[in-house]
């Protein structure tokens, strides 16, 4: 018998007025996995993230984390339990330095300034941002800001890290760097769920890919199989490109 999944999403449904953003979505994530969620724009990926992390609880369905129902918990409580996330539009604290931003995350598990400082330095070294620690967060490039956001999330010492488009807008060199960083995060025992459009990253990183279209999960499987799936091709490219035969 295998252990209970780390994250168990069961029949999550989210409505915004007449719009069904998530329609009965279910999936599980096991400890140590990297799972990607892909789908066309507006498919409901970010909404699903918001449902799982408590930012916008679902209308129906359940989210279980380590066997515990967290569906109705507040976002900060969910973070304390060990689920960290980033946002599609980078969220950093603009009037702080890089170090202070990461310290703010580290304070979740360290009450004292000195301990938070130490933890933040460690995370910054890990994320390759240590040299920029005294720079203002606003002065960073997009790439460094994305690294900073990941560092802030890591400083809260999560078991599950959910990244919303951390690769978007990166050049090929930066992309390699980010893929490498996420590999090292996983090697440290953190489970990853990523929403991503950059297929190069999805193909390389993922153990499993979940495809969402119009709020519904349509396909799930290993990355190589998923990209060949006719339903997926149709979702992305439309009916004209439906595989024949």
């Amino acid at each position, binding site marked *: 018998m295998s252990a209970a999944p780390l994250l168990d999403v069961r029949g999550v449904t989210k409505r915004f007025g007449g719009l069904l953003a998530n329609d009965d979505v279910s999936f599980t994530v096991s400890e140590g996995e990297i799972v990607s969620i892909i789908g066309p724009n507006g498919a409901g990926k970010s909404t699903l993230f918001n449902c799982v*992390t*408590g*930012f916008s609880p679902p209308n129906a369905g359940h989210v279980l984390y380590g066997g515990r129902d967290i569906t109705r918990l*507040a*976002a*900060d409580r969910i*973070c*304390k339990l060990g689920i*960290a*996330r*980033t*946002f599609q539009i980078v*969220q*950093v*604290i*603009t*009037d*702080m*330095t890089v*170090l*202070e931003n990461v*310290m*703010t*995350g580290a*304070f*979740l598990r360290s*009450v004292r*300034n*000195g301990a*938070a*400082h130490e933890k*933040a330095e460690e995370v910054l070294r890990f994320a390759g941002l240590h040299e920029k620690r*005294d720079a203002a967060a606003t002065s960073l490039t997009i790439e460094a800001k994305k690294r900073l956001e990941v560092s*802030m*999330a890591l400083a*809260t010492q999560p078991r599950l890290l959910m990244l919303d488009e951390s690769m978007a807008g990166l050049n090929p060199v930066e992309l390699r760097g980010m893929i490498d960083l996420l590999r090292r995060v996983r090697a440290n025992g953190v489970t990853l769920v990523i929403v991503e459009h950059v297929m190069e990253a999805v193909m390389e990183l993922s153990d499993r890919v979940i495809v969402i279209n119009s709020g519904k999960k349509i396909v799930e499987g290993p990355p190589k199989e998923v990209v060949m799936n006719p339903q997926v091709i149709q979702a992305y490219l439309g009916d004209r490109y439906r595989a024949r035969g």
Partner: protein
Amino acid sequence: MGVRTFTKRQVSVSAAVLVLLALYPLAVRGSFPMHLMIMVFLFAMLGVSWNIMGGYAGMFSFGQAAFFGIGAYTSSFLLTAYHVNPWIGLLAGGVVAALAAALIGIPCSNLRGHYFAIASIAFAEIVRIHFNNWKLIGAAEGLTIPMQDESLRNFMFHSSKAPYYYIMLGFLILSLGVCSWVTTSRMGFYLRAIKEGHDVAKVLGIDVVRYRMAAIMISAFLTAMAGTFYAQYILYLDPESVLILPISVQIVLVAMLGGAGSVMGPVIGAAILLPISEVTRVKLGFKGSGLDMIIYGTLIMLISVYQPQGVWGFLQKIGRKKR
């Protein structure tokens, strides 16, 4: 800097300023220079207290007069009605103001920016109108603090303003201590995250409502302490002298001009604004009423356009360039 360490120069400058301030009452004659400095300290403390919620956490309160008045009224009412020692009244006022802050803080816990500011004005006006009609505490006629022997225990001095000066200086140092503790502790980081946005705060595991409430309550407690001081200093209070909107506005101006979100900013702000307001009031009397506001307005416009970080931010920039 993540961890605050004081440089040698900072320590020696602060020590020198403290010695000068301690000697000031011995060096000046007449009551006006003493009164002026007491008002500077008083508003510096009010600005520092505002800063904890406004400057760090981004809760722009335009209703601090409510807490100031609640502090003044609590101690004065306890003293006139029950002969409670004003020092105990001071603590009671702080507690009552903090409770009032919690009461208003709960429904406002999700309000941000302008909406919080509007709610805070409404709250302060409700308190003012209520106090203006509340017979038990003298309604519009106010309360007169009964004369007592001059002593530290009675929090009352007749022959000199110097004791008031030193007490207020002590209060200011206390509030600066609280503020710098907040700044360097987890709470300060969390308040700054909350100021940035509730989402970025929540995603870092911050209980936004709890930390906002803590900031409002600490701010209210210190503001109420200043209120009790003011009552014991003026020895008379009515809603017009402690609960009106211009007091709330002046507190915000002191902090904004000096530098919101820095420990020393409001002190600089008070040192610039209070002399302007007190001197125009004394020199021009009623003819001058409003002139201080015109000068303030001009200063605030200049500051917000050219130096949004306040005078303190400007001084720091110069300091950095020199190094």
